[in-house]
């Protein structure tokens, strides 16, 4: 009996939080008209959220490309299809690894930072102070960060894929001796702009909305103590990683 009560309570809490998050995101989006006039607020946050995440994205993209090159070559060579290495690397990156790994790294680097920043602003009365200065913190603080995340995610995912393909080329053509012409021409033939690249971009935009949405909500909803902010940061990384992986499965099933 106790177990059922606990389960029911947990489910109700979850639904209630989901409802609060939805209302909150509605408030963010509906209050964002002022960003048209003050677009520099978004630009500032694109720097904090996007540009500062660039290093980890580029380095990871490089290593993922190297590993894909090595592993792909070993398997393809068994079937005498080593020439298709370029296609394999590009499709894996553009369809799946680019958006997904970028989103996971983005959640760990930018999402956690957003949650901690907003949670600490709340804990130190900065958000309350803004309210008392007749400034709505949702439009002034949250909305620019939210849109900066949505803008940054697809750009970061694209860069991840680019670096991955280049380092796959480096290992495949440079080290393992795949023919350079075959590498690029197979890629050009096999990768479709709409089916592969555009779908990958759609994925990364969706991940951007989800990860940044979770991050700003958790920060804004955090219990304003050091423990509360640490828990909220923790939740951001866990929830957004799970959401990314789950949504990726659903979108892959629908798209390809």
């Amino acid at each position, binding site marked *: 009996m106790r177990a059922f009560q606990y389960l029911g309570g947990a489910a109700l809490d979850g639904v209630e939080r989901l409802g609060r998050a939805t209302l909150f995101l509605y408030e963010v989006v509906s209050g964002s008209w002022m960003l048209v006039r003050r677009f520099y607020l978004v630009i500032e946050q694109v720097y904090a959220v996007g540009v500062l995440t660039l290093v980890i994205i580029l380095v990871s993209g490089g290593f993922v490309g190297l590993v894909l090159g090595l592993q792909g070559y070993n398997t393809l060579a068994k079937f005498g299809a080593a020439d298709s290495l370029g296609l394999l690397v590009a499709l894996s990156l553009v369809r799946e690894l680019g958006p997904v790994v970028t989103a996971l790294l983005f959640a760990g680097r930018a999402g956690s930072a957003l949650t901690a920043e907003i949670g600490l602003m709340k804990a130190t*009365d900065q958000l309350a102070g803004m*309210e008392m200065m007749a*400034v709505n913190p949702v439009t*002034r603080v949250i909305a620019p960060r939210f849109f900066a995340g949505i803008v940054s995610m697809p750009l970061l995912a694209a860069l991840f894929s680019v670096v991955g393909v280049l380092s796959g080329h480096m290992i495949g053509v440079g080290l393992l001796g795949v023919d350079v012409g075959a590498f690029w021409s197979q890629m050009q033939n096999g990768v479709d702009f709409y089916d592969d690249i555009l779908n990958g971009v759609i994925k990364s935009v969706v991940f951007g909305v989800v990860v940044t949405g979770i991050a700003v909500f958790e920060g804004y909803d955090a219990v304003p103590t050091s423990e509360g902010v640490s828990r909220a940061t923790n939740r951001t990384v866990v929830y957004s990683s799970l959401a990314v992986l789950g949504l990726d499965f659903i979108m892959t099933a629908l798209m390809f």
Partner: protein
Amino acid sequence: MTSSVSQAVFNDSTNLVEIRDVHFARGTRPILSDMTLTIPRGKVTVIMGGSGCGKTTVLNLIGGRLRPDRGQVMVDGLSVPDLNIKALYALRKRMGMLFQTGALLTDLSAFENVAFPLREHTRLPEALLRHVVLMKLETVGLRGARDLMPAELSGGMARRVALARAIVMEPMMIMYDEPFTGLDPISKGVIAKLIRELNDALGITSIVVSHDVADTLAISDYAYLLGGGRILAQGTPQALQQSTAADVRQFMQGLPDGPVPYTYPARAYIEDLFDGGSP
């Protein structure tokens, strides 16, 4: 309808804030019960009381961050709980609030913090904005600290910058939430002097919430003492200090035991010690 009636009743120009029969509870725990209190215009009014007695709640009710369960909160003839968000923000532009921590925006310099309300609410040309900000910083004696970041300011300086920010929109009143807590004696003296001077020079109404008896009473015109969600006493600082009521004396003189008991309610000590069972 009700608001026009209450305006007729309350539109008394001597009082800027009128709180009438206000009841406020968090969950089932009552914070304020049937509280009635008025803040006269142009005066320094102090609200004192022990920690957790609802002092800050009073400020949050006046600022419209909380709504009372019952009762009226009138500020300058407007019923705060009935205002829509636009009217509430318009009212807040005429209020300044100094938070206990200062609540400076940590990513902006002292100058930009003071400029923040102006940038948000006005379209002053940059040269004029600079003049206004420097004047306000000069008022609190920190014109030279304009380029420091909040992390580089001492506690007292941060509060002075926050005070400059609170007066930058030329408000009709300022609410101070525990302005003396955690400051050294010199900084306390500076803040006390500023509260009094701003009140007199700019004709601002000041509400100071504090548990610091000596510092606060010295600068106040009128004082309320809260306890257990009610007003225990009110009057001029002298009257409160000379009060013979046990609960007022306990607070004023800082006595550890009295109407507010020293021990938290518990069952009998012996019974508790020799129970031997669960903690």
